[in-house]
């Protein structure tokens, strides 16, 4: 029986996330994934950076490391090399992982370090009051794009795949059980697993862009995505402007630690 309280530091509550924030759904999916994999709490390390999503690390009863802005993958790489038997999960955001930490993301992917990286994408810097992020779509309003975003956003999954991640997936908070399965598959992959999770920030992104209440926003996710398997059968015009969800890339290759061990043998 899954009881989320078993995995949470209840003494840390109430949490600091805003009402309607999607990040709790991601955390729920992560805990269910860990439960279904029968991993013990002692063998899990959760490493995070700075930002709303990165605060999740503090609430879970594992070995947890809340690092500096953009750098969780660097810390996690050190942990994984030092104790390869540990399951190291990185929680980062779109600003943390793609802007200030973008360099570390491509290199962790290139090395194929045995980490599972969950990048929670809500298109905004929430902790600092709602500035645009590297994933903010063109035209979206933020405190630093008051007339609408004009910079082209990243597709983080394409970036991770191109950089060498052996597992790349995208999930949405609208589909927590599908997300849970993606996380399970990500943790099971021995090398670098990258998962982008589309999450919502009703407090800033939703409010600034008049997207309705949190329920409206989570429903909207469904209209913006197409499952990767279904997409194969659809004509190109039906895919225009849509994000693909599911396992987008899975090409197992030797994990960094194994490659290193062989290289120095």
């Amino acid at each position, binding site marked *: 029986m899954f009881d989320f309280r078993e995995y949470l530091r209840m003494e840390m509550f109430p949490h600091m996330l805003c009402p309607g924030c999607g990040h709790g759904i991601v955390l729920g999916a992560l805990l269910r994934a860990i439960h279904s994999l029968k991993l013990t709490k002692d063998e899990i390390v959760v490493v995070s950076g700075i930002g709303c999503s990165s605060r999740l690390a503090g609430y879970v009863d594992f070995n947890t490391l*809340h690092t500096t802005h953009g*750098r969780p*993958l*660097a810390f996690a*790489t050190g942990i994984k*090399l*030092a104790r390869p038997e540990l399951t190291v999960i990185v929680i980062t955001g779109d600003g943390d992982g793609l802007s200030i930490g973008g360099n570390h993301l491509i290199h962790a992917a290139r090395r194929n370090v045995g980490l599972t990286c969950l990048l929670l994408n809500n298109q905004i810097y929430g902790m600092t009051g709602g500035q645009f992020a590297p994933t903010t779509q063109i035209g979206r309003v933020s405190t630093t794009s008051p007339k609408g975003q004009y910079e082209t956003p990243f597709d983080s999954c394409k970036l991770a795949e191109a950089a060498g991640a052996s597992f790349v997936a995208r999930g949405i908070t609208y589909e927590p059980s599908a997300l849970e399965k993606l996380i399970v598959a990500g943790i099971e992959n021995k090398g670098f697993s990258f998962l982008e999770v589309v999450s919502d920030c009703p407090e800033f992104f939703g409010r600034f862009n008049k997207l309705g209440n949190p329920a409206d926003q989570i429903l909207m996710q469904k209209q913006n995505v197409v499952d990767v398997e279904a997409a194969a059968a659809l004509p190109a015009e039906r895919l225009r402007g849509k994000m693909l969800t599911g396992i987008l890339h899975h090409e197992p290759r030797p994990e960094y630690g194994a490659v290193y061990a062989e290289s120095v043998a």
Partner: protein
Amino acid sequence: MGAATKTVQLLQGNAACARAALAAGCRFYAGYPISPSSEIAEVMVRLLPPAGGKFIQMEDEIASLGAVIGASLAGVKGMTATSGPGFSLMQEHIGYACYAEVPCVIVNVMRGGPSTGLPTLPAQGDVMQARWGTHGDHPAIALCPSTPAEVYELTVLAFNLSERLRTPVILLMDEVVAHMYEKVDMRRLANLPVENRARPTCAPGRHAAFTPGEDGVPVMAPFGDGYRYHVTGLAHDDRGYPTQDPKLVAATNRRLQEKTERNRDGLVRYELLDTQDAEVIVFAYGIVAAAARRAVREARKQGIRAGLFRPITLWPFPGEELAAACAGAARVVVAEMNLGQMTGEVQRVIGRSKDVETCLKADGEAISPEEILLAIAGKEVRHV
């Protein structure tokens, strides 16, 4: 008989640092290439695997220190080495390691600055950065060797202090000491004591990760050994949980600051040469101290009662010891390869009763004994 076990070895400063790190129990190195520190990485990459250690060349210096902190939290002693620009990049993580109390060693082979500066030429321009480079109040330990043999000794000490006090320790070399070769007698050095961080002895559930012991230092459990706890760079309570309670924040910040003060005895090292009857005392460190030593001897031959105060620990600053050594001297001369970074610190300690004189150089050239001798004699030093 392997090279590492020969009684007398010809050792370069950077190589001595790498070998000493291994002897001190370092089993993780992460770094990014930068002159003039590169040999440290190049030696570590060979030494670590046979000892069961890991080497990784990271994507930059920020990531390098991040990885070292990660490895240390997982229970493996770690080190990184860099030079000025890389040291600047590492500052945020130095502060993180101070606040999260993660032992690690950072080697900075000082080169001419500011900015890209003089990549392969010596300087001592980072001594203040070693103290105040990262933001906020924090403890700082910086050791400064002046010979390859001392590089070896102080690298081991850096690891020991770092483990003992759960704080980052900075080894400040200059390019000359780093690249200098010297015959080193390994008999004593090979047997220096090695310290390891204290680990919790209580059951995992009872372990409050940041409750200090009597020495002000909390014991440290490695990730993965059953003591699940939270580590953050936010202000935190004894459990490691974020807090903004002024009382808790003040207590932690003071405790960290006092770590070096309370444990000063094993920490502050310095060397005195002929200071007892000296009328003029030279304050010099690193390679400049080697030149100063010769200048002091030469001055004595010429009838000038000169002495040398050489701080080995730059931070915490050996202020009391310096004040005591200089009490009877009429003059104090600071010789350093920068535009007077430690001069201010020396003046602060000496007080306004006498003006500290200087022999400063920040042009990529080492200071010569002749230049220091001129300063001792009270003559104007014209650097050429």
